């Protein structure tokens, strides 16, 4: 039986992981390290209000999300539990890369904190945003009200909902266009997300990509020690260059959770732990059971499920 770790993307505004931080010394040690690498205080990483400046807010938020997912990994690792395959969405993909040795943790966090220096948009630049589009489950991914709009770009595919009725897509673009399409579409079909002011995974992020490129080029990447599933296409990243390519393209290319979990299924994953709160529980359908882990009680639930489904809790992944 094969265990996978799944890391979500995006940057939440709510603090998570405070209970885990209090319960697990290994997490406190990690946060001390992250604090040293990033110059952020543990409080800023863990729970304090995020900065208001757009890119700085995004940067600190990514540090927060990545640190929590990594901490959950370390809590399991301390108990002797490690995955056989790993996959992530956007930031989760990059964090996953660090968990399988494709990039050092320090370099990952230094990159995330470096992104705060991305120039802020001009004051008169049109507002950006993202929205979720809900389409019938069997419909093609182009079957959404924003399709063909010059200021709206398909930026993500989260797959089918747990009741099998709908497929959730992400659209990025100019906020005015998204709001206009949402207003004209049947209620609930296109839902702009409040406080998401960056058109992630779209061509509008080219300035960010260009700014970060020299930093990413200077980073050291290695071959992943375990199957690392891409969120940009359906495949495992097999080399250091593959991983570097993902780091470059992640800002501007559409992401797909379907690609991640289909790839994990292809690796034989029978059970996945969702590391941290970045994929809300119970909304999506997965091709294997998942256990969401962002509170202390979830650790026990996850390990119990692994035991019950026959994951060998004591054998190193290489021999499992």
């Amino acid at each position, binding site marked *: *039986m094969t265990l996978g770790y799944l890391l*979500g*993307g*995006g940057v*939440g505004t709510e603090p998570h992981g405070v209970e885990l931080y209090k319960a697990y010394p290994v997490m406190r040690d990690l946060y001390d390290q992250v604090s040293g690498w990033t110059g952020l205080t543990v409080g800023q990483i863990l729970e304090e209000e995020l900065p208001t400046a757009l890119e700085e807010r995004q940067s600190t938020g990514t540090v927060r999300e990545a640190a929590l997912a990594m901490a959950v990994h370390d809590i399991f690792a*301390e*108990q*002797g*539990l490690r995955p056989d395959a790993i996959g992530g969405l*956007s930031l989760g993909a990059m964090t996953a890369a660090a968990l399988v040795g494709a990039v050092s943790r320090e370099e990952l966090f230094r990159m995330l904190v470096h992104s705060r220096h991305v120039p802020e948009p001009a004051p008169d630049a049109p507002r950006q945003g*993202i929205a*979720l589009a809900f389409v019938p489950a069997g419909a093609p991914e182009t079957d959404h009200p924003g399709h063909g709009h010059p200021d709206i770009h398909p930026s*993500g595919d*989260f797959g089918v909902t*747990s*009741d099998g009725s709908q497929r*959730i897509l*992400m659209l990025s673009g100019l906020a005015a266009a998204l709001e206009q399409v949402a207003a004209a579409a049947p209620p609930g079909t296109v*839902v702009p*997300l*409040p406080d*998401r002011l960056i058109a*992630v995974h779209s061509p509008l992020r080219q300035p960010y990509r260009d700014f970060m490129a020299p930093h990413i080029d200077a980073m050291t990447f290695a071959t992943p020690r375990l199957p690392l599933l891409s969120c940009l296409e359906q495949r495992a990243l097999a080399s250091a260059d593959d991983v570097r390519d993902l780091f470059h393209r992640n800002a501007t290319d559409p992401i797909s959770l379907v690609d991640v979990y289909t790839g994990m299924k292809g690796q034989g994953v*029978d059970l996945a732990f969702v590391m941290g*709160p*970045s*994929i*809300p*529980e*119970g*909304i*999506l359908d997965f091709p*294997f*059971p998942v*256990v*969401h882990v962002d509170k202390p009680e979830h*650790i*026990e*639930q996850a*390990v*119990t*499920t692994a*035991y*019950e*489904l*026959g994951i*060998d*809790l*004591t*054998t190193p992944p290489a021999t499992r």
Partner: protein
Amino acid sequence: MTVAPGLPAVARDAQIEEWLATDLDHWCRRVVQRHFHPETGSPYWLRRAAELPFDPRDITRYEELTELGPFTLDTLRTGDPGDLVPRAVPRPLAGRVWESGGTTGTPCRVFYTPDMVRHRGLWRRWSFVTEGFQEGRSWLQATPTGPHLIGNGVWEAAELFAGQVYAIDMDPRWVKRLIRAGRLAEVGDYTTHLLEQIADVLGPGRVSYLNTTPALFQALRQRHPELVAGLEGVRLSGTQITPAMYHTFRESLGGGICGISYGNTFGNAASLPVAPDAGLIGYVPNYPQVTMAVVRKDDWTTPVDYGTVGQVRLTVLHEDLFLPNILERDQAVRLRTEHWPCDGVANVRPLQETSSAPEGLY
């Protein structure tokens, strides 16, 4: 222990048929009247009746049981299990107190009257027959025993199914304690300890059927596939099983039987046949003593639509034990049944929270 003394097979089957033909509202009235009878009712429910703003004896329909609210399981952790048994059952009570898993804290305890033991045994035998198990074979029961009702399967297989039964004990509370403490290497050691005992019994090929948990069977299949391939059948309950696991088990067993059931100390459900490659494992409860509804996670009184996932709500309507509206720590798909007088449940797994905020996806 005698499970079904002197009851021939034909009579046993007739009893099951009679139960399945029972009108649920009629049965509900019968059980409610018995437990709330002023002189011969059960002490617990008579005390509750005095606290209720209505007379529970006015309940005439199964759906009206929701008026009693969700059953508080703490009652079964702290109270006298005999208080749930109607005084119509002669005192002093003589029999076993069985406990729930107790893997999450103080266990719940219920007293099983002889009728309850007999009824459970009849259903269990019915399941064996339906699934294709043969009488007079040898069994290995590798499950929790002691306070756990699943361990009564030793006597059920022996007495109801004329089986020669070997037994190995496992302690799920110890496993859970090790997991809670993060001592996973010791979980592995304990599993190895159990598998060694199982292999010792199965090794010489003297056992036809294995009764165990899906978790332990999975471990056995992985470490000793040759022993699994030599079995004529396996009966599984006690931990979750996914469709993928089930199909893997079937494959490992060759043509052997893979029987499964879902339930706990309070009530059980037998599995429906699972088609090859099916993504759904369905169960039907031991009607009318046990019924299961699948309800909204945010509103336990409202069933979800067929085919969708909700929380399992269990109701025990035994003449000697009345436990309405137990909100299980499980979720399942609500299953429409064609040849069963009540809903079934499918793809049972531990309860998960459900977010109502998809915006958290990014």
